[in-house]
Structure formats: structure tokens, C-alpha cells
């Protein structure tokens, strides 16, 4: 599968996750979100940027408690919980946010 963004095409897997992480840019994230009828707000970007930073350091997306703690620090304690993350990413923060961040989909019993 491919994703077309501004005249360029990017290879994705069957579910729309980028095949090559290096292909990612902000327009790609916006385009993926648009396919889900989702408009990315600043708070979405806080999550996406944190995922990318964490992935750069650890080669994996953060565990849910690592993510909620980090987002709580950035956006306020009332937002440092998975309920808020599900409001941002209704398909599930781990999977949907990873997709927009250009990261592979988490696998396993999750």
C-alpha cells in the first residue's frame, strides 16, 4: 500500500503504518490523520512528538504508564491518564498515535 502526500508516495503496510520510519514528516502525519477524519491539535502533537523522541532513544513506543506520566507533566495532571489519551486517539493511543508518528504498530498481546 502507499500513502500519497503532496505528490509524493510513501510505502505503508496493510494497515497504513509507514514502512520506512525515515519517510516521516509532519505532512505525512496530517495526511494519515485526515484519512481518519481527525484534525491534529497541539495536544495531539505533544503525544506524537513524545512518541518519536522516546522511540529514538529506546527503539520502541513508550509503555502506557510512561506515556501518561510524560503527557501529565507536559499538559497538566488532569490529562496524564489513558482516558484523556483515548479522547485524543479513539482507536487506542498506542496504535493510532504510533501510526501518525510514523512508528511501527506495537505487537503482542496488546
Amino acid at each position, binding site marked *: 500500500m502507499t500513502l500519497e502526500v503532496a505528490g509524493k508516495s510513501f510505502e505503508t503496510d496493510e494497515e497504513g503504518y509507514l514502512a520506512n520510519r525515515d519517510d516521516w514528516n509532519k505532512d505525512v502525519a496530517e495526511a494519515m490523520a485526515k484519512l*481518519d477524519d481527525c484534525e491534529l491539535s497541539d495536544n495531539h502533537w505533544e503525544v506524537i512528538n513524545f512518541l518519536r523522541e522516546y522511540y529514538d532513544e*529506546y527503539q*520502541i513506543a513508550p*509503555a502506557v*504508564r510512561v506515556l501518561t506520566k510524560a503527557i501529565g507533566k507536559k499538559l497538566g495532571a488532569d490529562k496524564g491518564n489513558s*482516558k484523556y489519551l483515548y479522547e485524543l486517539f479513539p482507536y487506542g493511543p498506542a496504535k493510532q498515535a504510533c501510526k501518525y508518528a510514523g512508528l511501527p504498530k506495537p505487537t*503482542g*498481546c496488546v
Partner: protein
Amino acid sequence: MLRAGPPRKRRAANSLFCYWNHNFRGLKNVADFEIPALKEYPVIPLIQVGSMAHSKPFVAKPDHQDAVGFPHELVDNWEEKAVKKLGELVQGSRALQVFLDACVKCGACTDKCHYYLGTSDPKNMPVARQDLLRQVYRRYYTFAGKYFPWLVGARDMDKEVLDDWYSYFHQCSQCRRCSVFCPYGIDTAEISMAAREVMDSVGLGQKYCNEILGKVYTIGNNLGLPEPALRNTLEGLEEEVKEDTGVDVRFPLDEKGADVLLVTPSADFFAEPHVDGLIGYGKVFHQAGISWTMSSYASEAGNFSMFIGSGANLKKTTRRIREAALDLGVKRLVVGECGHAWRVAYSFWNTLIGPFDFLDPKYPAPQHICEVTHDLIQRGALTLDKEANDHRIITFHDSCNVARASRMGNMPGGQFVIPREIIKSVANHFHDMAPDTIHESTYCCGGGGGLLTDDLIELRIKGALPRVEALKQVVDEHGVNFMAAICAICKSQFTKVIPYYDFPMEMIGSLHQLVSSAIQLKTKE
């Protein structure tokens, strides 16, 4: 047979908008298939031929196949090779041969599969699923099938058969409920595992399982959580518990000389509600004064090799646990809340990676975390405040691999008694679901056996129907608001699918989450 009511029309656009006002219950609006209606009492549906023929998981890519040692794609002469492989499997397993030979088509199994009850597709009746493989076995390996195939329902191996196999052997969660009701004890799980092994061997693998097994080999767990990330995550949990309780509960990693090696599903590190169970194990070990550790090398209890029926991979993945136990010098092996891991551990570890003569003989090897906690409760080693769970009205979901393929404790049925005894020790409000839906008759969550993947979401939602109907009954009658489970797959599956049935995802949790809430840490400092 009674006819099920017409399914409620719930088709809607397959899209979402963000900030959409959903209260964890509105997910049904995003399904592009019909969500089955919950009925007041179980109804056996009329058949709908081919209603799930379209359901197929993503096919493994060449690199996924490499990791598990199978061909990249469908090989030349695959028909012949598949038949040969089937013959080898039957030759190597007396059980498999009996299961293929013994069926008398009595029909006892037909209404016992949650996938049949949820989808109405007759090929999801266990006998029909078995027959997909049995027809080929008969054609090539029985006298009647060789000479009079039309008389005995025997059939050549061809592409149409293979397509059916790929579809319907990935609509079996290998939960073994049907085998409980079969007068011959025919185990459809074994047949489904054999079919998947045959498909893998000719180059047709399932992406979800095979990709995950590759991660176990390269990184150590299903998630692909490398050691630094695991360490970072566990340190975060130590901080969290300290903030919540004021007590330094440790979540040790790779600590040589610890008494216990805990092997748990990697979802326990990563996901909710699983992580609250892991916190519970940590608190139990802490209060009991048991020194314990986890291993970054063997950081996965789950073993998807069983789902794909691959003995070679089963051995290879399990060996990591023995190596870690020896390397760390532990005296006990404890398994966390994971259904199929406990089956593999309880039933196969001794053969695969035993003998466990290097462990302390005073303890069972391996031991389930529930056995550990139950034993400590019996001995008065834990201080528990049941009222801490008073806001919860609890029921318990027996996970299929624990219920029907293993045991806990030293008495028959211990796997049913021990988790419930723990719950009753840590909480005041407990109600079981209907008797024909628990214990050895438990219904699968709908996501077991390597089917917990988004490409099978329709199957997962529909397959959860019988369990959710039983849940609804205790919700209506007793106000149940929490369903405890002891399996990472069950927890993830329910969290994902029960919102489609108008239940909130937060009502699913770990059994040790309840222990975690009740345990009074400071009392024994």
C-alpha cells in the same frame, strides 16, 4: 433450534473524528459490520453459509517467515508437500490420528463454539472445522478415501481447500471448549494447530503470530521491548508505587541471586489494565519478603509457537527461560497472568526445558503467581483490606488455557478455586457468571489462539458474544462492574471489544489489580 433475532443494524462510516464525544462506549458506531444483539438467554443461531468466508488474517511477509524457519511464500508443488507434512504430523501424533479417525458426527460440538454462536457460519461448528482437515487426511491416508472419496467426504488438496483452511483455522482460538462436550474428547485445537503447521511449512504463514515470534528471538519478548526500555518502564513503576503508597516496592530486572524469576507476558509491562496486575505481583513479593527478579533475556511468558503448532519454535522460545533461570541462579520459577503461557509452562516446560533439578524442590516448578499469592494468603503473610475493593462488584472470567489445559494447586479444579479464593480474600462483592459459562465450560474471550489482531476484529467482536451475554446477566442481576481475568490476551481483547457491546473498557482488569488495591503495605514494613 430457536432463531436469533435479526441483528441490529449498526452500520456506520468506518471513520472517526477526534475529540468525538465518546464515553468509552460509543465504538459500535465505527464498525462496518453488524454487531450481534445481546439476547436475554443464549440462542443457537440458524446457519448462514459462508458468512465469515471473507475473514482472513494478514499473510506473513518473507522476513516474518525467515524468523520462524518457514518458506517465504507458497512453494512449488505445495499441494504435495502439504499432504506429505500432514502425513508426518499424523504419524508423529497418535492423538491427532485418533481425533481425525474417531468423529462419528454426533453433533454434540456444533453449538459449543463461541465463533459459531457469534457468526452463524456453519464452518465454525467444530466438527465442520475439523472436517476441513479431515477431508484431506481421508483422501490420502485412509483406504476408503483413496478409492471411494465421494463416499466418505474425502477431497483432494487444492487451492480452494487451502483458502478455506487459511480462513477457518484462523477462526479457531484453540480454546478447547468443544472438546469438553465431545463424547470422544476430540480436540479441535490440536487439529487447528496441525493445519497451521502444514500451512506454515508450505509458505503460508500468519503475519501476527510469526512476526511476534521473530521479536522474541531477536529482542526477547512479543512486544519487541528492548532491555533499556524495559528498565526505564520498571523504574517508572517503582516511582509510581512510591507516590501512591509511600513504600519502596521494587521491580527488579536481571538481579542475580534472587530467589524467584518471574516470567510474565510483556503486555504486563506495556499495556493497561495489565500493568496494574504487575504492580500487584510486585506488592505481593514485597510484603512477603520474597526476593525476585525479572529477566530482560526471557522477558516473555507468552509463547505463540503453540498457536502455530510448531514444536521446533516452542522449544526454541522456551529455552530462553531455562537459560535465564540458570544464569540468574534463581531457586523458583513463577509465571504471571497469561493463559497460554501457563498451559505451556504447566504442561510442556518439564519436557521442553526440564528437569528442574536446579530449583528448590519445596516449591512447584513452575508455579503460577496465583498459587504464590493464594499460599501467602493461607499462611497469613499478606495484610489485606477487603473494603479497599468495596467500590467493585466483581466477576471472574476463566481463561481457556488455564481452565481446560492446566491446573493450579494440588487438587482437581484448583485452577477454578484458587483465583476465586484470592478474589474473595481481597474483596467483599463477588458473583460468578452462569455455571455453563465458567470453569471448564468457560467461553473464550474471542481473541485467543493467535487471533488478537486488528485484521480479525469482526471475528473478535462476534466471538466475544457468548461471554458478553453471560457478563450482561451478572451486570443486570448483581450490578457487576469489574471482570477480573488472568490472561493478557483476555484483558486486551475485552478492553477492545466490550465497548462495542456498550460496556466500558475500564470494567476489565487483572486479578492482581484487586490484590494490589487491597494489600496494606505499611503494616508489615
